[in-house]
């Protein structure tokens, strides 16, 4: 298990190699970053005060977490090649399914961290709304917002394993002999996600009370299948 958690923690710590990031420690860089943070907070407060940022606006942000999870999973695999560490990774004395599982766990932990951060930001925005624009941000509105946010978080919790393994699948295919299949796979992914997570399409097939349960089961099942396929491709179809 020691090696597995070392692989997980390495996935979480993998960063894009920057040629020169010494400028980040300079005073002028810190001043610029501080200035832009103050500007962003100011713009947010003004948006809330003027009513431009209303309570439902922030719900748009939650599904974006799925996009971040997808990009993060794609990048976590891609970085082994772009950072020229793939030869170390692929010659580790463990089955490639274990190497991928460690990546999956590392990416998922990072995703959960992003979820917690997003919740904290939503709470802060709600507090700012109540203080700056109490007419628009009433207790009733905040209550409704909380219910809607919980639904959205449930949806992303259901979809996230599938989205992460799809990102991994695409990244692995990109470095395998199956690379020409990427365009049709993209089309399949878009169709799959839109079918599974568009309320209308699913409601047409199933009664609403079963929707969440069915989504969870189908999403987990598909995630397991896609993970198996990805492991097979990394094992049998990937060369360096």
């Amino acid at each position, binding site marked *: 298990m020691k090696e597995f958690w070392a692989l997980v923690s390495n996935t979480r710590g993998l960063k894009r190699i920057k040629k020169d990031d010494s400028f980040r420690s300079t005073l002028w860089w810190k001043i610029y970053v501080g200035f832009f943070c103050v500007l962003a907070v100011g713009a947010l407060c003004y948006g809330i005060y003027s009513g431009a940022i209303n309570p439902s606006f922030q719900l748009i942000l939650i599904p974006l977490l799925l996009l971040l999870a997808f990009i993060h999973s794609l990048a976590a695999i891609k970085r082994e090649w772009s950072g020229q560490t793939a*030869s170390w990774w692929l010659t580790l*004395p463990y089955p490639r399914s274990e190497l991928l599982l460690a990546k999956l766990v590392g990416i998922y932990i990072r995703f959960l961290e992003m979820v917690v951060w997003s919740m904290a930001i939503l709470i802060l925005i709600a507090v700012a709304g109540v203080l700056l624009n109490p007419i628009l941000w009433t207790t009733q509105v905040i209550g409704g917002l909380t219910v809607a946010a919980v639904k959205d978080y449930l949806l992303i919790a259901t979809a996230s394993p599938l989205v992460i393994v799809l990102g991994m699948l695409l990244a692995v295919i990109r470095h395998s002999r199956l690379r020409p299949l990427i365009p049709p796979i993209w089309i399949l992914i878009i169709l799959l996600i839109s079918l599974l997570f568009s309320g209308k399409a699913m409601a047409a097939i199933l009664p609403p009370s079963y929707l969440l349960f069915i989504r969870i089961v189908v999403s987990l099942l598909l995630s397991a299948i896609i993970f198996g396929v990805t492991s097979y491709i990394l094992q049998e179809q990937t060369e360096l």
Partner: protein
Amino acid sequence: MMAVSLEGVTKTYGAQRALDSLTLGLSEGQVTGVLGPNGAGKSTLFKAIVGLVRPDKGNIKVLGSKPSWQVNQQVAYLSDQCRWYGSHTVRQAITYAAAVFPLFNTERAEKLVDFMNLDRQATVQTLSKGQEARLKLIICLARDVRLLLLDEPFSGIDLVSREKIIQGLIESFAERKQTIVISTHEIQQAESLFDQVIFIDLGQVVLSGDAETLRQEKGSVESIYRGLFQ
């Protein structure tokens, strides 16, 4: 006893034949130099041994088995084009290697870090090419494995780093008996390490034999290389 044996191994990339019915054996407990010009098939040979490429034809046996992740427990491989994880410090690199590589000797790694003059707090990203090459070599040499494959370990490295690496290799050989395979273009500096030499070109063995015998018969390994490929 052969640590690695290849029989009629062919590997093609499109129209290019990297290995062409290659048949060779690497004796156990010996240091073998695999020499040849660019594109001769040396790196493909190393990759085939660790299972990073699959031959189109032929058989490969590594320590008595087909290349696999299980066999890689006993194989340390340094690729010619690899980098170490840029966000690690030297200390983190050693800790990570100790966690993921079975038979990793942390004590030896620490000694080698001192010997190779590496700063434990420095991040890999800030190391020079030569320093990073030393770190990668340390990670390979600290593994108590039966087979060590070093593909171009001196490539693009300054003279001082190269001498440090060769010294590190010599000390490592003296400590334990491993099968070591080195491919390099720095023949003059590395030839004293070799027990056995294999010259490869266009994916085939051009000449092979005991290094000492070849030296007596045909002069230095470098002069044989010049004679074969000039």
